[in-house]
């Protein structure tokens, strides 16, 4: 009886799992299938292409749309990486101070980070658009890296502060008692414990910068700095008469690959990072 019950439960859970996985992946599968359709197939009203074709990928990687797509890909990677590195370095110092030292203003810094994270991006973008045009940062990498810090810094500070609070800092003193120097103690006892948190934060910050759209479409105008999401939105296709559906789908799949790889490799860390930064009871 009891055994039958567990088999039944197992089947139910298996079904629930399948439902969740389909729910999570279906739109991705849909755009993946679209990316393999030939232009004549795009309007077949079916989920699957009749023949799998790589013509869309050729168009954006080596064909007519190459310049547009590859330059935006380069911009996105460069800008998101630099914004992530700056945010994580500054946030690490800041979170270390918050977790480890006692000084007036700690709460002010955390509250500011929280306030910055609820700022509507569009409220910041109008004045930046105006100022950037005046001082020449419009349509440059730096012109996006600086505003991206408003997206990546607050969450990095919160997530890292939550991580760092859990580190047993006494280890450092113990190591010093055992004869290690300040720096040795820090490097041997603290850095290995802190590194996973810093790394997780970097992935989350990168996702956020990679996802930006409002800054991307507002503060750039050419291939010099336009990141992928903005390029996708303004993509017009190979010719006036051809709908860019296939090319956009192929480009969408290419920019989704890094996300999927990071998620597959680091799902455990990402989950703990997201929940620690957000809800810590």
């Amino acid at each position, binding site marked *: 009886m009891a055994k039958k019950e567990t088999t039944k439960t197992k089947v139910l*859970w*298996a079904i629930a*799992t399948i439902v*969740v*996985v389909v729910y999570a*992946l279906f*739109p*991705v599968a*849909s*755009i993946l299938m679209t990316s393999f359709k030939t232009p004549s197939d795009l*309007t077949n*009203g079916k*989920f699957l292409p009749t023949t799998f074709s790589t013509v869309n990928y050729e168009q954006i990687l080596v064909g007519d749309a190459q310049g547009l797509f590859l330059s935006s890909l380069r911009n996105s990677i460069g800008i998101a990486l630099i914004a992530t590195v700056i945010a994580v370095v*500054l*946030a690490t*110092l800041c979170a*270390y101070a918050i977790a480890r*030292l*006692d000084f*007036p*203003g*700690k*709460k002010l810094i*955390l*509250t500011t980070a929280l306030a910055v994270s*609820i700022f509507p991006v*569009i*409220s*910041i*973008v*109008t*004045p930046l*658009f*105006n*100022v950037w*045009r005046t001082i020449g940062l419009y349509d440059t990498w730096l012109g996006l890296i*600086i505003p991206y*810090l*408003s997206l990546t*810094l607050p969450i990095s500070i919160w997530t890292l*502060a939550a991580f760092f609070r859990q580190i047993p800092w006494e280890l450092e003193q113990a190591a010093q008692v055992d004869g290690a120097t300040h720096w040795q103690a820090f490097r041997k006892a603290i850095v290995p414990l802190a590194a996973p948190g810093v790394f997780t934060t970097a992935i989350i910050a990168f*996702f956020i910068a*990679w996802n930006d*759209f*409002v800054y991307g479409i*507002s503060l750039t105008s050419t291939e010099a700095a336009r990141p992928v*999401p903005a390029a996708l939105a303004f993509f017009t296709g190979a010719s006036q008469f051809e709908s860019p*559906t296939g090319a956009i*789908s192929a480009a969408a799949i290419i*920019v*989704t690959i890094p996300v999927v790889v*990071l*998620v597959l490799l680091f*799902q455990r860390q990402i*989950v703990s990072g*997201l*929940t620690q930064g*957000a*809800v810590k*009871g």
Partner: protein
Amino acid sequence: MSKVVSARQRAETRLGWLLAGPAFIIMLLVTLYPILQAVWDSLFSFRLTAPDDRELVWLKNYGVIFSDAIFWRDLGVTLLITVVTVAVELVLGFALALVMHKALKSVRGLVRTAILIPYGIITVVSAFSWYYMFDIKSGFINSWFDWIPGIGADTNWFANAGTSLFVIMASEIWKTTPFISLLLLAGLAQVPDELTEAAEVDGATWWERMKRVILPNMKAAIMVALLFRALDAFRIFDNVFIMTNGAYGTEVLSLLAYRTSIGRLEIGLGSAVSVILFICVLLITFVAVKLFKVDLAGSRGVK
């Protein structure tokens, strides 16, 4: 003795600010400064196309906005999207969290990995994906669901507000439910097992256990998840821009701000919309914190 202590305290304060200061200053520079600039700009009649006609008009821009029906319609659409998506996401996210919480060990990793994919995907990509699914030319939804009355090969989902908003909200829900369910999962994990087990021994049904034990114990997590999602939904932009660009009465406040300032270069008027949007976000936060007693700082780890 006390002098030594205070000297050490001073050194610690200095080191603290030395380490935390740069991040703090950058946050102020990239947000506080622009928002103050927006407040200032909003007091001017100022078009980039006619920079010499810049004129101080005080609150006239706000008067123009508040007396414009488009603003109220956009506010309504924004609120509708916020309320509907957050409500659906709360239910759906809770169900997902329960599945992840109770899922068999062998599939737990798979479920968590799958659910993180929508979180990581670019919103623009998600928007295109949903758009192409429903699009009258490239979509397959019409041919899949033509057995439902009202859906046929010629159903144009993006030709009116109702159906467009349906797809916009569906894509928003798909994209952001994972985030809410991860927060709720963290909340679920904090409910002490002994409590649920004791209730079960006492003969409480599943629903009673949920209502009396589990939900009250994760109130903080639910409130934080609600507030963060509500703020996010209120700032919705990408999906709407890609799918309808605000056509057929689907415009939201962010899009109005964008269209006014960067589209039409009306910096004064656009800044005023930006400031109003910012004040709305502040109001939502304030109401949530006061009314629902969300301890934002506490639940985010400030002791």
